[in-house]
């Protein structure tokens, strides 16, 4: 009865195109937003901010960027982390070259650089498809990480080759750097991620979304009904890399505080790919669900033995954790290859007709 949609009629196309045609969805979202904006910040400890809330949001955003490219436009990419790196280094250069710049503006601008690099590395997608393209994106992955190491200008010729986030102020409050408070950083991340999510929802439900999905489903037919594949694929690379770049800047500036080049190496790319796929390709919600599972669950699992007083060596916990993540990936792929978002969709469909199954 909770999800009864009977009695909710749409009287115009405009109403039908509203974000949440079903009232209960809007209520659920409202509850989630209240939790995200009010309850969590009040209740969460420093540990929860740093290991769960902030990273889950940032990872979800990165996965959303990847999802635009892979889930919506059908171009498999294994180089996400490198584009996050472009965003992070661009942001670092901007705030160190122009210290007067507003940090949030810098973060949002850094995506522009990754978008540019993304488009450049997206050009091969016009000729190369499928796994070949996936391997081609690895060229970007390895080349860019190499560049982060070799191009000393990028890290201001630091002896360590790592970048360190300086203390950045906005309206008299530290938002980045060691002096920044977790709560402030959480709100900055939450605001940016919320806005980006909104933009992504709009883009994917409109003309561009249909263009991308058409390119993904049958590229030849898409071209024959008038879609410029080059434009479609390159806009996907552009939008995706922009989001991923912003996520990368947030990753370093709002969470990690410092970064070395190999942070942006392939394990991070895979991690984000896991999130996008376990969450559900071609879904916005899925990125959040995937991030909770892939980022949040291991953290929680890691604390369990200690919390329960089970004496297991921490290295054993880590081994088991790695195994568990592997097994979980396989498990979820088997029970629902279309991801957690699809699982939720099915549950929701059941709820709509519940308790009368026929």
């Amino acid at each position, binding site marked *: 009865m909770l999800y009864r949609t009977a009695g909710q009629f749409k009287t115009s196309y405009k109403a039908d195109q509203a974000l949440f045609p079903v009232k209960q969805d809007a209520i659920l979202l409202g509850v989630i937003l209240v939790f995200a904006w009010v309850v969590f910040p009040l209740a969460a400890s420093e540990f929860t901010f740093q290991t769960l809330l902030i990273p889950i949001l940032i990872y979800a955003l990165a996965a959303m960027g990847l999802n635009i490219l892979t889930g919506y436009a059908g171009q498999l990419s294994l180089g996400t982390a490198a584009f996050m790196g472009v965003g992070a280094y661009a942001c670092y250069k901007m705030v160190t070259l122009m210290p007067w710049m507003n940090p949030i503006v810098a973060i949002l601008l850094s995506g522009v650089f990754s978008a540019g690099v993304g488009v450049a590395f997206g050009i091969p997608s016009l000729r190369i498809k499928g796994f070949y393209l996936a391997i081609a994106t690895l060229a970007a992955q390895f080349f860019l990480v190499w560049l982060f190491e070799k191009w000393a200008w990028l890290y201001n010729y630091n002896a360590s080759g790592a970048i360190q986030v300086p203390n950045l102020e906005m309206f008299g409050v530290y938002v980045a750097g060691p002096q920044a408070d977790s709560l402030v950083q959480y709100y900055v991340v939450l605001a940016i991620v919320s806005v980006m999510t909104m933009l992504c929802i709009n883009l994917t439900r409109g003309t561009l979304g249909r263009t991308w999905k058409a390119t993904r489903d049958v590229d030849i037919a898409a071209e024959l009904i008038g879609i410029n594949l080059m434009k479609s694929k390159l806009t996907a690379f552009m939008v995706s890399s922009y989001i991923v770049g912003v996520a990368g800047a947030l990753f370093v500036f709002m969470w990690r505080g410092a970064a070395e080049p190999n*942070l942006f190496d392939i394990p991070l790319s895979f991690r984000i790919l896991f999130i996008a796929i376990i969450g559900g390709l071609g879904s916005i919600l899925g990125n959040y669900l995937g991030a909770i599972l892939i980022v949040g669950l291991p*953290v*929680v699992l890691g604390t369990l033995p200690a919390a329960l007083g089970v004496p297991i060596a921490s290295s054993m916990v880590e081994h088991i954790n790695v195994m568990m993540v592997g097994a979980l990936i396989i498990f979820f792929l088997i029970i629902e290859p279309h991801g957690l978002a699809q699982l939720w969709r099915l549950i929701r469909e059941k709820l709509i007709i519940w308790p009368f199954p026929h």
Partner: protein
Amino acid sequence: MRHFTRLAALAAFGAVLGTGTVAQELYAPNLAYRTGPFAATGIPLMNGQRDYMTMLNARDGGIGGVAINFEECETGYSTEKGVECYEKTKGQAIVTQPWSTGITLQVLPKSNVDQIPILAPGYGFSPMADGKVFQWAFNTPASYWDAASMMLEYIGEENLKGKKVAFLHLDHPFGKEPLPLMEKKAADIGFELLPIPVGLKEMQNQSAQWLQIRRERPDYVIMWGWGAMNAGAITEAVKTRFPMDKMIGVWWAGHDADLKIVGEDGKGYKSISFSYPVLDAPLMADIQKYVVDEGKTLSNEEEMQGVFYSRGLVISMILAEGIKVAQEHAGTAEISPSDLRWGLENLNITEARLAELGMTGMVPPFQTTCANHTGHSGGWMLEWDGEKFQKVSDLLQAEAEVIAPLEAQMAAEYAAANEPWPVSACN
């Protein structure tokens, strides 16, 4: 989703409570790595550290009558995991032992805010020696710049002038750490420095680097290696017929197991070290009695004879001494992180103290102060004799007059880049 996060938050909450200190216990967690590509070098160190604390708890009931909770948090040498461990432990911990230059760089800026001392013995950021700037960080008893300086000193200025020195290093903050000092020394002495980076993905296949070494014909190879890179480099060196006695590694490249792969062929390979295994030291007997015989060790006999295990013991000793000094100063056994900082700043490990600890010859004497967080113990040159490492030099000392200004300069740069950064006067 809501349900999920709440569950997560609950569990996390429980975890924080769960790791809380029980009364009469000092929580001194170790951000260990027994997994990942660097596990090979990590495990013996972690075992040594752990066994020392286990021994203290069993023999003396801890330090000053308080047991030490020496819990490990596994990082796998991953910076991300490391930060997670840091956040998880910092609530109760009196110390952070980050165990990787990457993690150290990451938690270093937070140290002023969180006010927990970072203990990074023999690693981390060399300018941490400047205690005025890095009030909460300690790289006792010797820094990477100390290591580089001692290695060059061992080779001798006269043997270096006009020569070519290849600097084979891991392409990682750790490997790049000694570069500023090496570059300065190269200019001062007048030798050609040839940095050769080894990527993280190439650690096990260094044929390109060694082809370069063969082409460039350097007179010496100084190696800043770690984990799987060490074995890779040493096997390649043997294969390329690079004279082993012209190859010197940093202390993390002096791991017995890495050399055992080449055995006899590795004879003559050297490694600088601030620690040395003394198997008949009284401490070893106590370890045997209170830890090994009780079945509490994770180590094995072969590993316990190696350089890294005994270095683990030394590192825990430094922490234990810091706690002891702090307890005496604070007048209570249950010290706070800032008490421990005072303790680590006022270490005075003399020969006499080492004898009391039963560790004579395992580490050179050293002393820290508020302004000097390293102690600059100096070190010994070890040489592989085909079976194990032997001490082949007297105590070497790093050139303080070269290093100190460089430390001060780079510490100041760091502080400037991280404005606002509190600097202490150390009066």
